[in-house]
């Protein structure tokens, strides 16, 4: 009985964890380091890091996305 209860607790915890992680898939960025070199996270979008320390108005894509598909 105790092992069954333990198994159920572990299964329930796994289910809650997977739902919590799977539900959090909003597009966009949260930290600057998600955007790659030369880009910053502004208003949840990766934009080109301006030279004056502010942020550019137009959203851009990180290096790895630019490199794929456009030659």
């Amino acid at each position, binding site marked *: 009985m105790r092992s069954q209860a333990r198994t159920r607790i572990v299964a329930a915890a796994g289910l809650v964890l997977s739902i919590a992680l799977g539900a959090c898939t909003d597009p966009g*960025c*949260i*930290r600057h380091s*998600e955007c790659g070199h030369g880009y910053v*996270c*502004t208003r*949840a979008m990766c934009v080109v890091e301006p030279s004056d320390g502010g942020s550019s108005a137009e959203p851009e894509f990180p290096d790895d996305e630019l490199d794929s598909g456009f030659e």
Partner: protein
Amino acid sequence: MALFAVVLGSAVSSRAYGQGVASDQLLDISTGFGSGVLRGGNGGLGVAQRAPFFVDVTVLTPHPAEPWLLLGGSLRVELEDGRAVAGVARATLRHKLSKLELRPGVAIPFYFAPRTMIGPEANFGIRYPVGNDFGLLAGAGIAAFMIGNDVPHGTTVVMFHFQLGIGLLL
């Protein structure tokens, strides 16, 4: 807030039941793997994402006068995105509960590469002993990062994480 109450409550109870924890150990070494939920956003835009998977190595040592208090730190390495690296200063309470050991604590994670961010963290862990010195660890924590050049201007990055690991008492 609930975590804070648990930390305070366990501090009081750990004093009362301080005899229940071993006082002859010198080091508590553990390693773990985890992830969680990252929440933030700028300009009123709330964004939630899965936090990057991370591994960490933690070394704790009991306070010489108060063996129910563990002090030490962790090195945490994220395995995704910018592969950030952080040092974490920790203070953890120990409270025996039957075979388990409850471990509420506070920490200050400091991400220093490739960018910086720092903030307070509250956490709660459970240690399940397997044998004399070996144990399985599970934990959860919540941290708020307000300072650093990895935090977008005008926002706070909130990280809620879960972790599983193994530990060794020396």
